[in-house]
């Protein structure tokens, strides 16, 4: 079982990440999640800045990956979260899970995203023609995380 966690401004390559995850041929199932900067509904998003808590973010992501590893039989977990200023359609986050079984891969990837959304110290600030504002936390994210308790 390998866990690898990365917090960086630089973009990542889905192709490279997938190639790495699928290299282990005992794993028949690879699930990936990518989160992208979304357009705002009512006015144009110019950019988004991701603030983080250096040191704690890496530790939080590592802990979340380890919790997933304890719950499911996994071959590999990879988490990448970008920080700094990103523009619409840019990649923000990657979660990749390889497992012998698809149910484990799917559930672990969902678990990691649900916990990342509620426990990893990242904060988004959106910059649009209407000014800048901090993104509010969503109760749906809290609810999603709670189902794993």
């Amino acid at each position, binding site marked *: 079982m390998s866990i690898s966690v990365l917090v960086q401004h630089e973009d990542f390559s889905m192709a490279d990440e997938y190639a790495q995850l699928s290299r282990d041929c005992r794993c028949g199932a690879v699930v990936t999640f990518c989160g992208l900067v979304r357009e705002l509904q009512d006015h144009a998003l110019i950019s988004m800045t991701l*603030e983080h808590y250096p040191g704690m973010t890496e530790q939080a992501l590592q802990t979340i990956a380890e919790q997933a590893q304890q719950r499911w039989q996994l071959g590999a977990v990879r988490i990448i979260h970008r920080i700094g200023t990103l523009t619409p359609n840019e990649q*923000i986050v990657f979660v990749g899970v390889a497992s012998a079984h698809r149910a484990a891969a799917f559930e672990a990837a969902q678990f990691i995203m649900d916990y990342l*959304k509620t426990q990893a110290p990242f904060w988004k600030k959106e910059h649009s023609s209407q000014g800048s504002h*901090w993104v509010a936390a969503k109760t749906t994210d809290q609810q999603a995380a709670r189902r794993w308790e």
Partner: protein
Amino acid sequence: MIKVLFFAALRERLNTATVELDSSTLPADASAAAVLTKLQSRSADWQHELSRQDLLCAINQRLCPLHTKVSPGDELAFFPPVTGG
């Protein structure tokens, strides 16, 4: 000393990223909540901002409840609910 960090909207509203507290001004078995109370007493603004119910607390870079004890040398952090991913 105890180092206290603020992040995101809270950091902006307090206009402060870091505060150093002299541990000797805190009781020996002080909790994160006691640190918060001490910080709230700084001004009406700080009182207001640090009274938000949804603030999260980390001690030594791990999320923990406010009743957790703090020790000299600890790194505390207070911040709004996280919104990454």
